[in-house]
């Protein structure tokens, strides 16, 4: 098990480190925004599609309103969590 953990740790580190370190000519275009949107959708909507998605959408709407009103990322997340638990 120890060897497997070390292998995973080293491999993960290199996957993160080498592309960042190496100055390449690769133009990333919209990769950053694309990944952020993808991470959001994958984290918010779990399979299979269900009525629970409506609860998620309602809580996301509340999170959005909280962010507009409070102008604070952390507080908006907290408001969203509380409302999600209440819905």
């Amino acid at each position, binding site marked *: 098990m120890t060897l*497997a953990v070390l*292998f995973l740790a080293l491999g993960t580190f290199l996957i993160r480190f080498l592309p960042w370190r190496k100055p390449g000519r690769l133009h990333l275009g919209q990769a950053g925004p694309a990944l952020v949107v993808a991470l959001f959708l994958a984290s918010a909507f779990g399979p299979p599609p269900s009525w629970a998605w409506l609860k998620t959408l309602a809580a996301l709407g509340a999170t959005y309103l909280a962010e507009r009103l409070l102008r604070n990322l952390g507080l908006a997340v907290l408001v969203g969590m509380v409302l999600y638990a209440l819905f």
Partner: protein
Amino acid sequence: MEVPMKAGFLAAWPLVLGYFPVAVAFGLLGREADLSPWEIQMVSLLVFAGASQFALVGLVAQGTPPLLAAGLGLLLNLRHAFYGPALRPYLRGGPLEAFLLTDEVFALALKTLPHLPEEERRAHFLGLGLGAYLSWNLGTLLGSLGAEGLKGLSQAFGFALPALFFLLALPHLRNRVALLAGGVALVLHLLGQTALGLVLAGALGLLGRRP
């Protein structure tokens, strides 16, 4: 602690809220897989990549050879290869920065770093990463010590990361390339291929022009 690092550390709290219960769940899973608390903690201390940690421990518990399980975990982490280059315009990555580069740290850094003076970015990023790392490892520790009472937190706090990612994604929701990539990732996620979907999303993003 330097002021920008402290600011980054404090800015990490939405992320801490999301990480902690998931880390508790990981610790509990490790105990169910008959790993010792030290082995479970070693995974979180050295790997610091949630999905691949769950894959490693879960697969080993089902009888998969550990090295094969680690290889599959690495495939899940391939998406991380896009994160550093996407941050490169704002921050040059060293070993410590790379070690701390999770999905959530990346997304938060992409939002905050462009608005900071260049000389403050590294310390801010390290503060963000340190907050995330401490939260992940503290949660793992509590879970591995059998904090069953914290299981409920995993459900109550389950919305923290989606909410955080949503707010970070908001500025990009009119970006057609990002929406297309997100749609592809969502479809593959629903088909049980989340990691592949995220890698494809990154690849599709490459096709878009920088604004």
